[in-house]
C-alpha cells in the first residue's frame, strides 16, 4: 500500500524506477560471462553492418589460381575450393546469421505471441484449437518441419525465414498463453474488468506488459537457436542459394577438403558456436536480472 502511495508522487516514482534499472544492470553485467556474450553479439552485429569495409576481398570472387590455399599473409585463413578468401566469406556470413536471427524471431514472436494471447485470454474452443495446433507443431522434429516447409515452398532466403518462423512459433504461443492465464487471475485485472475496460485495453495495457519479461528471455535465446537452425538447413544445401556466404554451407563445402585446409570447415563452425553461445549467456543473464524466479522455467 505504501509503495502505491509513493507512486503517486511523480519524482519519487521516477527515482525508484532508475534504481530498479540500475539494479537490473548490476545483476545483468555482474558476471563476466554475460559481458563476454554481450561483447560477442555487439562485435558480430558490427562486423555484419560493416562487412564491405572489413572484408579484405570480395567474398564471391572466384580465383581459380588460388584454390584451397593454406593460411598466408595474403589470405589470413586461406582460400576455399574456388579460390575465395575464407576470412571475407566468414565476415559476410555474419550478415545472413544476424538477419536470420532477427527476422525469424520477429515472425515467430509476433504470430506466436498473438495466438498465445488469444488462446490465453479467450480460452474456449478457439484457445483449445490453437494450443493443440501448437502441440502438433511441437511434436514434429524441428529440423524435419523446417526442412519440409522450406523444400515445399521451394528454396530461397524468404522461404527459410518462413519455415524457421513457423518452427519457432509454438514456444512463444505456449509461454504467452501460460503467462496470460496466470496474470488473468490477478486482482488488478478483475478491477480493470469491473471499471469496464474493454478486451483490447485489458489485454494490451494490463496483460501483455506483465507477460513480457519471460518472453524477452525467450527472444534472446531464440536469436541464437534460429541461427543454429539456419546453419543446419544451409549445411544441407536447402534454402539460401550459392554463392551467398552462409556459415552452414561453408562447413558443408569445406568437409571435402579437411586434409588440405581444415579451417574451411572449422572456422565457420567456431563462428556459429561463439554467436549462439553468446546469445545463451546473455539470455541467462537477462533471466536472472529480470526475475530470478524464472530460473529453470525457460
Amino acid at each position: 500500500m505504501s509503495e502505491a502511495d509513493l507512486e503517486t508522487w511523480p519524482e519519487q516514482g521516477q527515482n525508484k524506477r532508475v534504481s530498479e534499472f540500475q539494479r537490473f544492470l548490476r545483476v545483468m553485467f555482474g558476471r563476466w560471462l554475460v559481458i563476454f556474450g554481450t561483447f560477442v553479439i555487439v562485435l558480430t552485429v558490427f562486423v555484419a553492418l560493416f562487412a564491405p569495409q572489413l572484408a579484405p576481398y570480395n567474398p564471391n570472387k572466384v580465383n581459380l589460381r588460388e584454390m584451397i590455399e593454406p593460411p598466408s599473409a595474403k589470405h589470413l585463413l586461406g582460400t576455399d575450393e574456388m579460390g575465395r578468401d575464407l576470412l571475407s566469406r566468414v565476415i559476410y556470413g555474419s550478415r545472413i546469421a544476424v538477419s536470420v536471427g532477427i527476422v525469424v524471431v520477429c515472425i515467430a514472436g509476433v504470430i506466436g505471441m498473438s495466438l498465445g494471447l488469444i488462446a490465453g485470454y479467450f480460452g474456449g474452443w478457439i484457445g483449445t484449437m490453437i494450443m493443440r495446433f501448437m502441440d502438433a507443431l511441437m511434436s514434429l522434429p524441428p529440423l524435419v518441419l523446417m526442412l519440409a516447409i522450406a523444400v515445399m515452398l521451394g528454396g530461397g532466403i524468404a522461404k527459410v525465414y518462413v519455415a524457421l518462423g513457423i518452427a519457432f512459433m509454438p514456444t512463444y504461443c505456449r509461454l504467452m498463453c501460460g503467462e496470460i492465464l496466470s496474470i488473468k487471475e490477478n486482482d488488478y485485472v478483475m478491477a480493470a474488468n469491473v471499471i469496464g475496460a474493454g478486451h483490447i485495453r485489458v489485454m494490451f495495457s494490463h496483460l501483455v506488459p506483465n507477460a513480457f519479461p519471460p518472453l524477452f528471455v525467450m527472444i534472446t535465446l531464440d536469436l541464437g537457436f534460429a541461427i543454429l537452425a539456419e546453419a543446419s538447413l544451409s549445411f544441407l544445401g536447402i534454402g539460401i542459394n550459392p554463392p551467398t556466404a552462409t556459415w552452414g554451407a561453408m562447413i558443408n563445402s569445406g568437409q571435402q577438403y579437411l586434409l588440405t585446409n581444415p579451417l574451411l570447415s572449422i572456422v565457420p563452425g567456431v563462428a556459429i558456436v561463439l554467436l549462439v553461445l553468446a546469445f545463451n549467456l546473455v539470455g541467462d543473464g537477462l533471466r536472472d536480472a529480470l526475475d530470478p524466479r524464472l530460473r529453470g522455467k525457460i
Partner: protein
Amino acid sequence: MLSFLLRRTIHTIFVVFIVTIISFLLLHIIPGDPVVRILGAHATAAQIEQLRHELGLDQPILWQYIHWIWNVFHGDFGKSFIYHEDVGSLMLERFPVTLYLVSISLILSTIIGIIGGVISAVKRGGVADSLISLFANTGIAIPSFWLGIVGIYIFGLKLGWLPVQGYTSPFGDLWMSLKQLIMPVFATSVPNVAIVARQTRSSMLETIQQDYVRTAKSKGLKQRVVLYKHALRNALIPVVTLVGLTLAFLIGGEFIIETICNIPGVGRLLVRAAMNKDYLIVQGGVLILGTAICIINLVVDVTYGLIDPRIRYK
C-alpha cells in the same frame, strides 16, 4: 487413473489428427502445380492427369484429405518418384537403423546429462558446477553436424582411430559396427547431454529447497539418502516428461549426422528426398515422425501418471 488415461489418449488423438492435417497441407503449399513439380518438366499430359487422379488432386480439398488419410491408414503414402517405390516401405526398410542409433544416443545422453546435472546441483558454486555449466551452455550452441565433421577430421583422418563413415549392422560385424557408431552417437549426444544437464540442474536445485527435503534432512537422514531418494526422484519428473521434446531435437541432429556419415537410415533418405524435391517422402516422413513422437509422449505421460499420482490431476 482411467479418466486420466482417457483424457491423455483423446488429447493425443486430437494432436495426431492435426499432425495429419499439417502433413496433408504440406503438399498444398508447393507453389504452382504440385503434380507438375513432382513429375518434373518432362512429364506428358496423360501422366500428369493420371498422377493427379491417383493423388486425388482433382477432387475438392476435404475429399482429398479423406482420400489421402484413407490411403495412409492402409499403409499407402504414395510412391517416391525417384526410387519408384512405396514411401512406406522405403521408410520401413531404413527405420531400424535410425531407431538403433537414436535410442543409443537418447539413453546415453539422458543418463550422462542427469549425472552431470545432479553433480552440478549438489556441488553448486564449485569447480565441477562451473565446468558442467560451461559445458551445458556450449553444448547447446554446438551444431552436431559440425561436431561430427571435426570428429571425422581429428579421429578419422588425423589419428586414424575411427572409420570416417559408413554403417555396419551390429549383427554382422559387431566390432566394426561399434567403431562406426562412436562418432555419430557422440555428435548427436553432446547437445542433448547439455539440455538434459541444464534441466536436471535447475530442477534439482528447486527440489532441494522444498520443505520435505528439509524435513528429511532434519530428521537425520544421510545426505546421500536425502539427495537420491527424496530429492532426485522428484527432480527427475520434469526431465523425463521432456523426453518427447528432447527426442524431437535429437532426431534432427541424428538426421544430419546420417547424411554426413553415410548411414542408411530414415534421416539420409529424408534429407536426400528434400534435396531432390521428392515431396511424397518428405510428407510421409513428417507424418510418421510426428505421429511416432505423439505416441511416445503419450506413453511417457501415462507411465509417469502411474508412478506419480500428482501428474494425473494436473
